[in-house]
């Protein structure tokens, strides 16, 4: 591997860490909106995942750093970035913890989350929904109603960032991110009203 390729890999890992944290934060906020312990549990699972990702990242940085005799300043920066990322994940977990402890959420919390420009929403796909049997890519939810499916629960299994060829089925609980205008449209599509 050339030095450039190695650094591109590091950058990919940074993006992956960042995306996972942002996803955790979104999920934690939605756990709060829906007062949903199940979602909160997923945040906790993701925290463990971030821990593992972080360790992998640290090892990679050190490996490349030692091999290429990198300037220690660069390595320190990257390692500290990893620590800060882990702190972000911890903060998301703290929000999920509120839900898990059964502290009844103040109505204000729900209002704050729902008034955001972009929000996380949840819908269950019904038998007669046009989404039933469609691939995520085919459904073109992003183009049509401006929402993106970020996670999905089928029976007891969770799928994060399902790929565009993932086929939706009746009974799937989808978690999506999008503009508030898309919320009702998504609900209607999932329930088979449109």
């Amino acid at each position, binding site marked *: 591997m050339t030095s450039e390729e190695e650094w591109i890999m590091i950058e990919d890992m940074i993006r992956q860490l960042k995306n996972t944290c942002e996803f955790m934060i979104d999920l934690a906020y939605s756990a709060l909106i829906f007062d949903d312990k199940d979602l909160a549990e997923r945040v906790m699972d993701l925290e463990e995942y971030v821990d593992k990702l972080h360790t992998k990242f640290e090892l990679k940085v050190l490996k490349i750093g030692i091999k290429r005799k990198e300037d220690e300043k*660069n390595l320190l*920066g990257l390692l500290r970035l990893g620590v800060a990322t882990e702190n*972000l994940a911890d903060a*998301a977990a703290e929000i999920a913890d509120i839900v898990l402890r059964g*502290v009844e959420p103040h109505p204000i919390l729900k209002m*704050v989350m729902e008034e955001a420009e972009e929000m996380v929403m949840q819908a269950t796909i019904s038998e007669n929904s046009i989404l039933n049997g469609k691939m995520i890519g085919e459904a073109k939810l992003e183009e049509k109603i401006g929402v993106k499916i970020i996670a999905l629960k089928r029976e007891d299994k969770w799928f994060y960032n399902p790929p565009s060829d993932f086929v939706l089925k009746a009974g799937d609980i989808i978690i999506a991110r999008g503009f508030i205008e898309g919320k009702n449209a998504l609900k209607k599509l999932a329930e088979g009203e449109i």
Partner: protein
Amino acid sequence: MGTQEVQYKPLSVKELLKEMKNLSSLMIDLAYSAFLYDHKKLAEEVMRLEERVDYLGYLLGIQAALAARDREDAEQVSGILKVASAVDKMSDAAADIANLVLLDISVHPTIHSAFKKTEEIIGRIKIREKSVLINKTFEDLELETRIGVDVIALRRGKDWILNPNKKIKLQVGDILIARGSVESIEFLDKLSSGKVNKLPEVAK
């Protein structure tokens, strides 16, 4: 960047928490971008946002304490304070990342050179005196259609406006935080500094 003294202001807990939440999300985005592209000015904006989030956190604490009238209230308010403290922690983490840029311990130089061409970046652009953008609204400018940049935030002095309204008129000294390709951000920079005075036509 002096520390702002805390004074009681009758802002609602809801508005305060909403602003804290939105600003902290913006900070995370800006901080990683500043780190990956070694962008010091952007890192400084993250530090300013951090100061703002801290300040809002104090105001929220005061408001929340006033809101609790009995045991039940107090329980619910404690939930709000917990969320606020987690949001504050997120903004601290973002500021830590930005600080790496300011301390000059960010990344290996090849990282940004390798990605600069294709990736969407976040730019920080100041509107200068000779700019053609002055006194124009976002509606007039149609920056997204004309040059492909999305203005995600605007700072005017100490005030931050997220996803600015189309009717806002740009002024000298405004700081725009925008997302777009390297070329489009560079073009916006030329428009803001007055080096270019003509906006491209809207593609039909």
